[in-house]
């Protein structure tokens, strides 16, 4: 079934690429969405089983797969709006759709694959797709961003590959040549701990490009700056989750070795640095998309720190990732609307949004505040749990520092939000396209979902989530 799915994805993509008719592209996107849904349901039915010997439908993968399916619906929806708005020629449109399909498929692969090498291959595939997508607008900036993305990402991937080779070497000394995660975690205990450290170090640095975590966080920011907003939404959420899943699989496998302490320290400090950099840049951000990107950096930093706290905090980490995916994607979808309305992303040249379009402005304000983790945002719950876990794990000073940094971040959010939404316009600010209700309603649904999952989570959901972390 999974094989069918991948084949279908390839076929459909190829079809679009060959036919190059807008109608065909849209139709096959719909078809693919159906396939995505089916595979999701199928995965739920066959929970915990292996498939094609290298794939496995486990809880962690599945929860993100469901988020991915949801997000792909949204992304396709907003992509239609986007493509309809800037009348591209059918060629570019079809490339866009084909690559989007490939991207979704390969992210699915990342979530479900249970073999280090296979996972790496899928991550590589995502790089290819993303670079094509952010190149979509084909101006100097997008070219630069694409170049940087390709270059740094390939180095990142190479480093991750080095990590995997080390892994191979490490398990080889025990005479094992299988790199599926189960066998890795079986071997990890006996393998040379220094090897393990090297492995984790390189894996972390390598996949930090995908997660947008320090040290290779920079290119993701640039990519998000130029990417079409639906793609941006996808990159900053689903792809980030993919990076997290990749990292988490290795972390989980290696934690059998007695280097957990070391890995946690590493994660703690990368996360801390990420949040710090995010705070700094958000204080001085001048561009809405970059603001969103840096907030992504902040959240992924929080996630890394939560991961390092380990134990019950993992629940909070997964919750955090899910809620963040919902809010952040909503923000990027809405940024498309904002751009359509003001023809700019510059924070200083957007004024009195509320006066011009009250409803949209309120949604925008809510998105920013929710992202900052102000109740009634569900993100507050996950952050609360993460901090509580940190305190109990004894990282008191780290938590205090983190709280201070978060305060700065909320300050940045508030200031920018007020500047855009409520500030008096000194010079006349032109507005262009009308804002349609149908691009706001889905975002409202997302916001409601965030509150719902945060404060009134259905019992099944919490249970499933708590099964992810064991």
């Amino acid at each position, binding site marked *: 079934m999974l094989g069918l799915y991948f084949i279908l994805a390839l076929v459909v993509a190829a079809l679009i690429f060959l036919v190059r008719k807008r109608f065909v592209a849209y139709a096959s996107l719909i078809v693919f969405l159906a396939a995505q849904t089916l595979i999701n349901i199928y995965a739920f039915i066959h929970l915990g089983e292996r498939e094609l010997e290298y794939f496995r439908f486990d809880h962690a993968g599945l929860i993100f797969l469901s988020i991915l399916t949801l997000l792909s619906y949204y992304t396709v929806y907003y992509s239609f709006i986007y493509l309809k708005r800037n009348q591209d020629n059918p060629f570019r449109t079809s490339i866009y759709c084909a690559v989007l399909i490939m991207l979704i498929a390969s992210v699915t692969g990342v979530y479900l694959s249970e073999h280090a*090498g296979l996972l790496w291959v899928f991550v590589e595939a995502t790089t290819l797709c993303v670079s094509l997508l952010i190149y979509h607008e084909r101006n100097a900036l997008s070219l630069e961003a694409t170049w940087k993305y390709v*270059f740094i990402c390939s180095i990142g991937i190479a480093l991750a590959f080095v990590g995997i080779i080390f892994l191979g070497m490490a398990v080889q000394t025990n005479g094992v040549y299988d790199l599926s995660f189960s066998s890795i975690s079986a071997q990890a205990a006996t393998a040379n701990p220094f090897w393990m450290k090297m492995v984790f170090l390189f894996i972390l640095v390598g996949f930090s490009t995908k997660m947008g975590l320090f040290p290779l966080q920079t290119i993701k920011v640039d990519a998000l700056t130029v990417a079409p907003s639906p793609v941006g939404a996808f990159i900053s959420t689903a792809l980030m989750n993919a990076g997290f899943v990749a990292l988490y699989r290795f972390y989980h496998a290696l934690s059998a070795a007695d280097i957990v302490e070391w890995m946690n320290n590493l994660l703690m400090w990368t996360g801390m640095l990420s949040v710090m950099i995010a705070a700094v840049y958000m204080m001085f951000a001048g561009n809405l998309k970059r603001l969103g990107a840096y907030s992504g950096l902040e959240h992924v930093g929080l996630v890394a720190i939560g991961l390092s706290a380990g134990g019950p905090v993992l629940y909070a980490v997964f919750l955090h990732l899910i809620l963040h995916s919902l809010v952040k994607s909503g923000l990027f979808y809405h940024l498309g609307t904002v751009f359509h309305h003001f023809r700019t992303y510059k924070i200083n040249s957007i004024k009195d949004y509320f006066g011009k379009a009250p409803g949209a402005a309120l949604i925008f304000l809510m998105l920013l505040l929710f992202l900052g983790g102000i109740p009634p945002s569900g993100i507050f719950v996950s952050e609360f749990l993460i901090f509580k876990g940190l305190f109990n794990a004894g990282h008191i000073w780290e938590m205090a520092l983190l709280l201070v940094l978060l305060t700065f971040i909320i300050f940045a959010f508030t200031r920018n939000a007020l500047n855009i939404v409520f500030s008096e316009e000194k010079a006349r600010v032109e507005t262009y396209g009308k804002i349609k209700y149908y691009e706001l309603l889905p975002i409202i649904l997302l916001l409601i979902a965030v509150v719902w999952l945060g404060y009134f989570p259905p019992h099944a959901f919490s249970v499933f989530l708590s099964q992810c972390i064991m």
Partner: protein
Amino acid sequence: METILLTVFSFTLLFIGIANRLNTFIRMLALQGVLLFGITFLKLNEISWFNLTMILLETIIFKSIAIPWFLSYILHKNKIVRETEPFVSYFWSLIIITGFIILSYIISGYLGLDKNTKADFTVAFASLLTGIYIIITRKKIITHMMGYMILENGVFLLSLTIGAHQPMLVNMGILLDIFVSVLVLGLFLNRIGNTFEEMSIDNLSNLKD
């Protein structure tokens, strides 16, 4: 025999560190390809002939012919200045690269490897670091490409050390090689060449805060 090849390989690293003409770079890359070919031939003589041919093709055709040719093509097409324009003086580069070799040797000490794997690892890891170092200290995109190639060679060499038992990893390395080159080729051929005349990354730094 193999040890000699490895030694030569590390010499190429040092030489690249102090090369001041781009052409020298390219020749060195080609040479590394050839060396890799030799090493592969010596190491992986017992794996399946299919894989072997794959690897040999990769090393000979791809690494030591296609890439260098392509790079020099770019050079001529875009009339790039021949100097490598490093940020760091050659003297220091030499010292630092030597430092890399020593560092990787020390690291290999911690890994409990047998003797010749140790040599492999040292050279491979050193060339990995050197590649990154070259990228960091040189200005031009084309030099970045070359640095990346060196890094790739390092990774490839690394994969060879366990390729005997896990050929799949080697293939993945090759896959990576091809994939990246395809991407970059694409970019170069249809855009960067005629979008940016002088291909120094100074005009590739507009995206910043």
